[in-house]
């Protein structure tokens, strides 16, 4: 080792962190090298001055008391604006706000399929005429004659910009059946409806205002039928229509 390397060890030796052979080599060198010995002496003096011969700084009177006053036990501390209940409520509010569009979409989308159909059925059974023939009415319609249902009326009934048509049928026993078709095959999420799979096809049953409904997907449109008949009977009819259509 040369003087430069020993000089790098001066601080370590002054601070007492040189050990063993490293310490022995350094002490031997300092004995024989007056330059390094002098540097060592100067640095030791500086350390001694700072550690022992130097008055520590004194804080202004009252700092200790201020510190003590500020040391309140955690449980006695006044809850801040972001205490746990406040934070939890704020988080819940943010969550609800974020979820609101989804929830609204969820119920609206379910309404797209089923809502309004039951009301339509009640109007029909109450004798309210629904025979408005629209020029926009489609040529496509469900042919339910094989099951004894004759078409009474049809009209366009778009829902939120989505083309849809409503058909009213009358059965052989003077019972009524309302059917609604929606353009497109994009099926909304139906969380409240019960899904029944038959013949590789999904059917969704739903009951509202005393009216049973069944929805399913045709080749290029969605279909809902509504009746006061039992759910099982309406589902069986829906399966037959779907099977025949396909």
């Amino acid at each position, binding site marked *: 080792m040369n003087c430069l390397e020993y000089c790098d060890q001066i601080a370590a030796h002054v601070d007492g962190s040189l050990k063993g052979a490293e310490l022995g080599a350094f002490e031997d060198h300092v004995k024989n090298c007056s330059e390094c010995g002098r540097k060592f002496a100067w640095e030791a003096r*500086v350390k001694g001055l700072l550690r022992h011969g130097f008055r*520590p700084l004194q804080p202004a009177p009252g*700092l200790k008391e201020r*510190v003590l006053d500020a040391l309140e036990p955690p449980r006695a501390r006044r809850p801040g604006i972001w205490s746990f209940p406040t934070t939890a409520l704020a988080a819940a509010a943010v969550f609800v706000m974020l979820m609101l569009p989804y929830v609204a979409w969820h119920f609206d989308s379910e309404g797209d399929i089923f809502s309004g159909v039951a009301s339509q059925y009640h109007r029909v059974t109450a004798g309210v005429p629904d025979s408005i023939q629209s020029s926009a009415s489609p040529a496509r319609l469900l042919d339910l004659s094989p099951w004894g249902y004759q078409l009474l009326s049809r009209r366009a009934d778009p829902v939120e910009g989505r083309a849809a048509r409503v058909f009213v049928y009358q059965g052989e026993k003077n019972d009524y059946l309302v059917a609604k078709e929606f353009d497109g095959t994009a099926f909304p999420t139906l969380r409240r409806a019960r899904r029944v799979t038959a013949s590789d096809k999904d059917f969704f049953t739903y009951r509202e205002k005393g009216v049973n409904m069944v929805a399913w997907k045709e080749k290029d449109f969605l279909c809902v039928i509504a009746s006061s008949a039992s759910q099982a009977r309406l589902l069986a009819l829906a399966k037959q229509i779907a099977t025949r259509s396909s």
Partner: protein
Amino acid sequence: MSSVGSTVPGGRFLFLSLDRKKNLKSEFERVALPQLPHLYTAAAYFTRDSREAEDLVQDTYLRAFRFFHKFEPGTNCRAWLLSILRNLFINRYRRKKQEPDTVDWEKIDRSYANLIAEGRESVGSNPERELFSSALDQEVEGALRSLPEEFRMAVTLVDIEELTYEEAAKVMECPIGTVRSRVSRGRRLLQVALAEYARKRGVI
């Protein structure tokens, strides 16, 4: 009849634990509060402003009290408090990102070499003794305050707060070798600065 706490090790631990929580504040006052002058001295050299130093010390104690349950009894409480103080200083009190190291090391090394040479040529006298025995407190304070932050911090922690290199490295969050190097360079800067004061007073 012996108590549950003395017969069941777990029970004893439970009692001690509950007792420790109950007396948290008094224990904190006993262990941490005597370090206040040391913390203030470090804060004053870190911030170089007495009012900021007092605020920094107060904030340090508040944070230390909040996390006192994390302090390991038997370890160096001063080093633990200085770690908190240093972090608060870095995050809250240091306005500039990092003071540039404006030290002209060539000039310092020349001055230092001259200082050593003067001592070598002074036959029969001891200039370093004269220098350091005559140094005024305010001169030492001024010299220490004038050091760039990294050297000022290292010298303060090791020489004034008496931390080991290992403890100072933890506080400064750097390797031990870096602490050693900063302390060495900081002391060299101090020697040159104090010699300047001594020359102005005609001591050397």
